[in-house]
């Protein structure tokens, strides 16, 4: 069996270091090694979006990235959205619009929505639905999710990105 590889990266703003097998996916490394179980496994082949994370700000399915590939890179998961100041505007909008039912797709939805709003502050409903097509939700019928993203687009404008500092670390 292959020797474990040492990987150093920034995850949610914190420097992390871990050992993993070369064949372990980023999803497995986040959940089983780093204990960040907020990122979900829904299909493990890139068709449901539940495992969505940001890799250097780029939206990816963490099931289709090897853990060893994140060496020296920055990963953002759902656990990194809120900071000591409270919920991120996208999280807040999802709560306010009742866009959560079972909540299993929610972490991926939040990350995908953030990736969209980071690029396009004012997407149309059609654009949101097109962008979110990679994130399956079986409970909500999507309506409240789309409304939440539109609401978040309005509030994101006046929001400073999370600050990662001691208080923030202590919080997790």
């Amino acid at each position, binding site marked *: 069996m292959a020797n474990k590889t040492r990987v150093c990266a920034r995850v949610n703003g914190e420097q992390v270091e871990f050992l993993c097998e070369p064949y372990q996916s980023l999803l497995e490394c986040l959940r089983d090694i780093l204990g960040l179980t907020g990122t979900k496994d829904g299909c493990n082949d890139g068709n449901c979006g539940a495992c969505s994370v940001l890799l250097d700000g780029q939206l990816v399915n963490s099931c289709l990235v090897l853990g060893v590939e994140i060496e020296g890179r920055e990963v953002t998961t759902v656990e990194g959205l809120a900071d000591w100041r409270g919920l991120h505007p996208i999280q807040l909008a999802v709560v306010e619009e009742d866009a959560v039912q079972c909540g299993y797709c929610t972490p991926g939805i939040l990350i995908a929505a953030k990736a969209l709003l980071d690029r396009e502050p004012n997407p149309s409903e059609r654009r949101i639905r097109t962008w979110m097509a*990679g994130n399956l939700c079986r409970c909500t019928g999507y309506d409240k999710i789309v409304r939440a993203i539109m609401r978040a687009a309005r509030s994101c404008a006046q929001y400073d990105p999370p600050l990662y500092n001691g208080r923030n670390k202590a919080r997790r």
Partner: protein
Amino acid sequence: MRPFEYQAPTSIGEAVALLADTGERARPLAGGTDLLVQLRRGLLEVDLVVDVKKIPELNRISFHPVEGLTVGAAVACAVLCEHPDVRAAYPALIDAASIIGGPAIQGRATIGGNLCNAAPSGDAIPAMIVVGATCTVAGPGGTRAVPVETFCTAPGRTVLGEDEMLVSIRFPAPMPNSGARYLRFIPRGEMDIAVAGAGAWVLLSDDHAQITDARIALAAVAPTPLLADAAGASLIGKAPTEDAFAEAAKLAREAARPIGDVRGTEAQRRHLVGVLVKRALRGAVRRATGDLATPSGRSTEPVQGGRNHG
């Protein structure tokens, strides 16, 4: 997943050496959106995965109005789709690259990978074939050029030797009065594999009254993406009319060798070839005459045969 080793060389030489040493039990890794799924499903077993994303040549996009465009094999679709020169000069490439999976897939997937995966349904391949793209392949003995239409030899098989790798894809500079379009049909709005796909490229006379050259290529209707020569040739010298498109569509349907599978029946695929070739030709001509825009960014609004599209 069965264990394997991982290497991330920073030069073509190292990469080729690693592939040569391990032989058929090594595979290059670009976006991984096909490779990792195949490894996980046990469809493929390897001892070594060679991550080629750290090799400069494979990450480059270079455009020259005369030389044309070179796209590194590891360039992600998302990056390609945002490149201003590519968007301006190669809209058909955007048509295809922007519909390969949703945004999360496009952040990883590459047109080089799409080519090396050699799926009959690979959307980028007909788009590359019709604009006359060629592959630059590196091996121990240096590099060689392979036209895209001959790169795939069978489902999942290519001309690449065990010790060879795809470095980049070259696209000739676009000619004035030329235009290209790629369209596919899928049941949902996004996220599906093409049931059938069609790419078309046309070159019009200066007055736009006549088609002086044309190429048509098809996806998911033969063991490999298919250049439909006769269909393209049938348009040469004709006016860009619905009748001419219909004749080309008929020839393309005859060239298709579809199978029936979980995604569609043989009859449905053959029928869709006709529909899509007509729609792709209309789009290509509109592009040649400058009245059809490039789709906006990655994971664009679906253009694949949906209502009022193409």
